[in-house]
C-alpha cells in the first residue's frame, strides 16, 4: 500500500512535538490534581526526556514501548491507585506508540508523497480538532453513566468510586427508578402520550404537506408559515397561550390536552421533512395512476406514500422525540396527573439532586443507541435486499 518513502526524523522535530503532547496530557492530569502549570511542565519534561532516550539509546522499538507502558502504569498506580493505573496504562500505550510513530516518520505513510509539510500538519490538526469536538460533545453524556452507579445519593465521584472499589458502586438508583411509583407513572405517561401525539402529527402533517405542495392552493406561503410557527415562536409563549386557551375549553390538565399540544409541536417537523421529499416526487405518477383507474385514496397509499415514506418516518421520529423530551408545554398544559418523564426529571433535579435522574438518563441513552442502531441495520438490510449496496 505504502508508496510514500518513510525516513527517520531528526530529534529537533520529534522532541518538541512529543513534549507538546506531553504538556497537553500534563495539563489534564495537573488540573485534576490542583496545579495545571506544574502538570504542563512535568508532562513536557518527562516526554521530551523519553523521546531523547528512545532515539539515542533504546532504539529497540518493542523494548521501548513495553518500558513506557510499564513506567506510566506504575507511576499511575502509585499516584492514583487503581484508577491511576488505568489512566497510566492508556497514556503509556499512547506515548510509546507516538514517539516511534513520529521518530520513524511513519505519519507520512498514509499520505501521498507530494504533500507539503503544511499539508501534513493540517491533515493531522484537522483530525485532532474533529476528535476534540467529538470529545466535547460526548463527554457530558459519558460522565453521567458511571455516576448513575453511585452508592451515595449525590452527584459526586466518591473516593471509593475513584479507587474502583466495588463498595462505591450500587444499582440502588436503578432499583429506585423501577420501584418508585412516581417514576413509573411518569414513564407510563410519556409512553402513552408520545406515540399518540406522533400519530396525530404524522397524519395531519403529511396531509398538510401534500395539500400545500399543490400549486393551485391559495395563500400557500401564509398557511405554511402559520403551521410551522410552533417551531419558531419561543416555546414558553406557545405554552402560555395554550394554557389559557385550553383552560377555557376544558382541555387543560387532561390527557387529550397534552396529546393535542404535543401534536401541534410535532406537526411542523413532519411538514418540513415531507415537503422536502415531495420536491423530488414526480407528479406524472399520480396522473398515470388516475389514468389507469385508481381513485385518489388508492393512488395515495399505493403510489405516493411508498415514495415519500422516508420523509414521513423522519418527521415522525422528530415528532416523537419532541413529545418525549418536551418539558415546558407539559408543565403548562398538563396537571400532576400527566407528569411525563422530563417533568419528573425536572422536578427531581430541582428539589432533590438524586442520582436516580442519572440512572434514567443512562437508560434513555442506551435505549436511543439501540433504537438508532436498529433503524440503521434495517436500512442497510433493505438496501442490500434492493441491491443498492454491496455486502
Amino acid at each position: 500500500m505504502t508508496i510514500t518513502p518513510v525516513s527517520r526524523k531528526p530529534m529537533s522535530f520529534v522532541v518538541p512535538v512529543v513534549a507538546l503532547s506531553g504538556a497537553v496530557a500534563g495539563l489534564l492530569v495537573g488540573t485534576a490534581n490542583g496545579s495545571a502549570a506544574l502538570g504542563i511542565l512535568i508532562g513536557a519534561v518527562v516526554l521530551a526526556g523519553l523521546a531523547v532516550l528512545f532515539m539515542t539509546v533504546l532504539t529497540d522499538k518493542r523494548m521501548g514501548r513495553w518500558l513506557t507502558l510499564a513506567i506510566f502504569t506504575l507511576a499511575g498506580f502509585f499516584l492514583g491507585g487503581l484508577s491511576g493505573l488505568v489512566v497510566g496504562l492508556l497514556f503509556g500505550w499512547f506515548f510509546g506508540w507516538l514517539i516511534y510513530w513520529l521518530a520513524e516518520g511513519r505519519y507520512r505513510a498514509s499520505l501521498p508523497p507530494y504533500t507539503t509539510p503544511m499539508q501534513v500538519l493540517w491533515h493531522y490538526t484537522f483530525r485532532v480538532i474533529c476528535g476534540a469536538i467529538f470529545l466535547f460533545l460526548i463527554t457530558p453524556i459519558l460522565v453521567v453513566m458511571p455516576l448513575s452507579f453511585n452508592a451515595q445519593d449525590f452527584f459526586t465521584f466518591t473516593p471509593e468510586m475513584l479507587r474502583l472499589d466495588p463498595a462505591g458502586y450500587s444499582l440502588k438508583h436503578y432499583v429506585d427508578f423501577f420501584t418508585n411509583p412516581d417514576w413509573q407513572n411518569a414513564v407510563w405517561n410519556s409512553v402513552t402520550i408520545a406515540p399518540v401525539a406522533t400519530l396525530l402529527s404524522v397524519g395531519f402533517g403529511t396531509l398538510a404537506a401534500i395539500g400545500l405542495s399543490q400549486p393551485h392552493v391559495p395563500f400557500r406561503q401564509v398557511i405554511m408559515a402559520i403551521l410551522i410557527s410552533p417551531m419558531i415562536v419561543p416555546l414558553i409563549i406557545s405554552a402560555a397561550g395554550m394554557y389559557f386557551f385550553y383552560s377555557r375549553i376544558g382541555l387543560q390538565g387532561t390527557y387529550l390536552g397534552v396529546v393535542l399540544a404535543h401534536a401541534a409541536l410535532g406537526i411542523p417537523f413532519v411538514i418540513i421533512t415531507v415537503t422536502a421529499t415531495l420536491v423530488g416526487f414526480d407528479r406524472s405518477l399520480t396522473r398515470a395512476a388516475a389514468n389507469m383507474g385508481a381513485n385518489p385514496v388508492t393512488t395515495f397509499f399505493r403510489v405516493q406514500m411508498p415514495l415519500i415514506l422516508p420523509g414521513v418516518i423522519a418527521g415522525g421520529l422528530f415528532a416523537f422525540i419532541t413529545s418525549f423530551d418536551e418539558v415546558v408545554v407539559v408543565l403548562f398544559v398538563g396537571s400532576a396527573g400527566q407528569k411525563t418523564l422530563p417533568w419528573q426529571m425536572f422536578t427531581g433535579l430541582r428539589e432533590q439532586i438524586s442520582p436516580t435522574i442519572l440512572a434514567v438518563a443512562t437508560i434513555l441513552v442506551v435505549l436511543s443507541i439501540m433504537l438508532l442502531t436498529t433503524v440503521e441495520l434495517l436500512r442497510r438490510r433493505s438496501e442490500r435486499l434492493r441491491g443498492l449496496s454491496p455486502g
Partner: protein
Amino acid sequence: MKLTTTLFATAALAVSTGAAISESHMAKEMTIVSWGGAYSNSQQKAYSDPYSAMTGVKIINDESSAEAVAKLRAMNEAGNVTWDVVDVVASDAIRLCDEGLAMEINADKQLAPAPDGTPASEDFGSLRVSDCFIPQIVYSTTFGYRTDMVGDTPPTKICDVFDTKKYPGKRALEKRPINNMEWALLCDGVPKDKVYDVLATPEGQERALAKLDTIKKDVIWWSAGADTPQLLADGEIVMGSTYNGRLFSLIVEQKQPVAMLWDAQVFDLDGWIIPTGLSPERQARALDFVRFATDTQRLADQAKYISYGPARKSSAPLVGKHATLGIDMAPYMPTDPKNAKNTFLYNYEFWADYRDDIDAKFQAWLAK
C-alpha cells in the same frame, strides 16, 4: 368534635366512618401540591397514605410549591384551579390570602381540636399567622459544616460564617436577602432586637451588604434546598445554609461528615392552604383532608420521618423515634431546647413591607 375523637380511637371505626363520609358529596380524587424530596415523602407516609387507605381517595402529588403563588394566580385567571391542597411557606400563605386566592379557614370549626379538647386556634396559638394558613411544621434555616474541614475548633457562632481567616473555604448562602441580611447585621454588632429597626433604614441595608461584601468572593449562592447538601457532600464548601431537615437527612441518613451549627437559626413556618374557586365537592374533600392531616397525632407522625417540629403544642410530647433508624428525633428538632438557645424569628410583616425594595438592592449588589 365527638366524631373525630372516635375516629382515632379505634381503627375499625375509622375505616367505616371514613367510607361513610367520603360518599357522594366529596371528590374521589385530589391533587396535593408540596415541595418534593424528603419532605414530600414524610407527608406521603404520615398523611396521604393513611388518608387514602381510610377513604379510598386517589391522591396525585405535584411538586410545585416553589412557584405556588405564580401558578395559583394563573389558574385563577384562567378559571381552572386544578390543585386541591397546597403546601406553602407562611409568607406565601399571607400573600395568597391577601389576594383572595386562598380560602379562609375557621380553625375552631374546621380543624380538629387537641385530644384534651383544647380548640385548634389555641393549640396552634401564634403560629397561625394568617386566616387562610393551617400551620403544619416549624422549620429553621441554619448552617451545616464539614467536620473534616474546620480543624479542631468547629464553628459555634453564626459569626464564624463571616470569619474567612479562621474557616477558609467557600460557603453556600441562599440567593435572596432574607436571612442573609439579618445574619450580616447580627455579626456586624447589631443587637438581636434591633436588627429589623436597622434593616428598615437605607443605611442599615447598606451596612448589611457591606458585611456580606467581606465574604462575597467566598460565597456560592444556592436557590434550591438540595444544593447545599450536594455541595457539602462534594466537599466544595466548608459550610452552608439550608433547611434543617435537609441537613438531618445528610448527617443521619446519608452519614456524611457534616454537623449542625444551630446558632441564630431562623424559624419559619410551613403549612397548608386551600385555593379558592374549587367546586363544592372538591372543597369538601380538601377540608376533610386538611382536618385529618393537621390533627395532633398526624402532625406528630410526620416528625418520625423528618426533623421538623410539629406546629401544634399538643403534638410535641408525642414526637418519638425515627421510623426506620429508630433514633430519638427530639435532639434533631429545631425547637429542642439545646438547639434553640439562640434563635431568630422571621419577621413576616417586615419582609412583606420591605421585600421588593431590599430584593432589588440585593440583586444589584450581587451583580456588582
